[in-house]
């Protein structure tokens, strides 16, 4: 099987003042289609940095990043944003919904970039909201929803354009235990029934248990790679 994500000797450095700080030191990583990968590690170890590289939000300092057949480290800023729209669904710790828009309008935001008709967009939004179990809250604004519900709207937004890869940065980090479990069940369902490949950064070992593979990052190096039988 061809890998969905391949990183070859990837480093990432930031220049802070006059100092150059290397955050990732030569990462090699492959992720197969259909995997549900949990990326763990202490704060500051470079998890978000790595996730951003895989998701095409940032470019590596050196090395190759191959995702869904594209050398995204070689794409320009402009083509990279088109690429993200086609391939990546994003889920953030703090949901990052647009506060002025209703749930359904939020879910529609990625679809505005496509050529779909208004009715087709509406249909897909409806399907996505039903999938996350929030169809009856379509007209609510984010501040009228609980954290767990907001995160489910965010998941609907992430899957509505049927991306190749879902990336989640601490999706349960801001939720209580109960809501966190609901979100993890939802992600697992997306992975199992809808064959979505998921890369999830998390601090929470309970959340990581839902994943099929666990990867540890420490001070910019991959340390531990375990696969679990489904």
């Amino acid at each position, binding site marked *: 099987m061809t890998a969905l994500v391949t990183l070859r000797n990837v480093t990432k450095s930031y220049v802070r003042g006059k100092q150059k700080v290397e955050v990732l030191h030569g990462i090699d990583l492959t992720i197969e289609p259909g995997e549900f990968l949990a990326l763990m590690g202490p704060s500051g170890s470079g998890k*978000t940095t790595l996730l*951003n590289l895989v998701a095409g*939000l*940032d470019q590596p300092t050196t090395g190759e990043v191959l995702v869904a057949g594209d050398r995204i480290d070689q794409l320009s*800023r*402009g083509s990279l*944003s*088109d*690429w*993200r*729209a*086609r391939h990546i669904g*994003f889920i*953030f710790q703090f949901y*990052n919904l*647009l*506060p*002025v*828009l209703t749930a359904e*309008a939020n879910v529609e*935001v*990625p679809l*505005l*970039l496509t050529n779909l008709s*208004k009715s087709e967009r509406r249909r897909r939004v409806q399907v996505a909201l039903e999938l996350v179990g929030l169809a009856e809250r379509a007209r609510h604004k984010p501040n009228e929803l609980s954290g767990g519900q907001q995160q489910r709207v965010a998941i609907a*937004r992430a899957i509505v354009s049927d991306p190749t890869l879902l990336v989640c940065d601490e999706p349960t980090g801001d939720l209580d235990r109960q809501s966190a479990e609901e979100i993890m069940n939802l992600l697992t369902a997306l992975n199992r029934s809808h064959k979505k490949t998921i890369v999830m950064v998390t601090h929470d070992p309970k959340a990581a248990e839902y994943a099929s593979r666990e990867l540890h990052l420490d001070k910019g190096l991959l340390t531990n790679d375990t696969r679990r039988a489904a």
Partner: protein
Amino acid sequence: MKYFSLVWAGLWRKKTRTVFTMISIVVAFLLFGLLQGINQGFSVAMRTLDVDRLYVSARTGMTDGMPISYLQRIRNLPGVRAVSLWAYFGGYYQDARKVVPAFATDAAELFKVYKEIKIKPEYLAAMEKTRTGVLIRDTLATQYGWKVGDRIPIGTSIWTNKAGSNTWEFDIVGTFDASAYGMGFPAFYLNYSYFDEARSFGTGQVHYYIVSIQDPKQADRISREIDAMFANSSVETRTQTEFALAQSQLKQLGDINFIANAIVGAVLFTLLFLTANTMMQSVRERTSELAVLKTLGYSDTKVLLLVMTESLLLCLFAAALGIGLAAVVFQSPALQKLFGNFSMPTLVMMMGAGIAVAVAFVSGFPPAWRARQLNIVDALAGR
């Protein structure tokens, strides 16, 4: 436009702030609409003035008289249809503050020169027969409660009659309707022949000859001919079209106009900063939201356009409201009385739209550029 809801929602993110900014823009454009509307109203009114009427006065000044003998010589020029005359009477009724704009004239000719005046033929006939007769404007009759048949004493600060009095008695023989010529048209006419006989000095003097010509295209030629004809006479003349005359009289208005434009300019300039500030604040507050849009695949250019559209929407919407309000104000009875049947000129609306677009661009561009330059990773991390 499918992005409309996105832009609209962004605009109303902070309702109070948007409303206040909007009110400022509305007021600025109301002011703009009113001043420009009045300005344009005058120039439109000026353009409808007849060029087939020429005004001849003494070159040295409008109040210096010309000899009555000029009348026949002007009348004999080819292309001249009719000639009438005005001599200032400078009247008042009862006391000097109750001004009566009175002129001595040749009534029969006057009403040929001003074709749009409505008067009954029997009034004109009565004027011919009654030496002390006067024709007055219907508006003046209403103002002082005068009727046809009244004998009225009119004072003048200029002329004493041969009886040695400053108060002249006149008989009202008719009224006329001069609404076609606006509020400024003189309202009180006495017979020049009587006036010239009865005054104790200045005999044979006329202040204006009003010349009606057959072909407006000949206005320049005839004007030159008249002035040339009297070039070496005791009193040289200056001949102007009605348009030119009105323009020179409205010169002061031009100065007012300049001040008005300066005020509007200053207001719009201030508006620029106000709008720019609102947009900048709004973009700053939305840093993470804009970063999310970019994350989801909105290109830098698209984000820039979204912010620009927001600024454009704000300015155009408020400007339309302001100019619309000004248009409504122009429909008010008071202004209709002043300008006649007047509505907001299309040119002013277009200028307003143009300025609104310019304000939107200038004030929207810095925040839009900032949004464009926003780095996703930093913005998401709150850096």
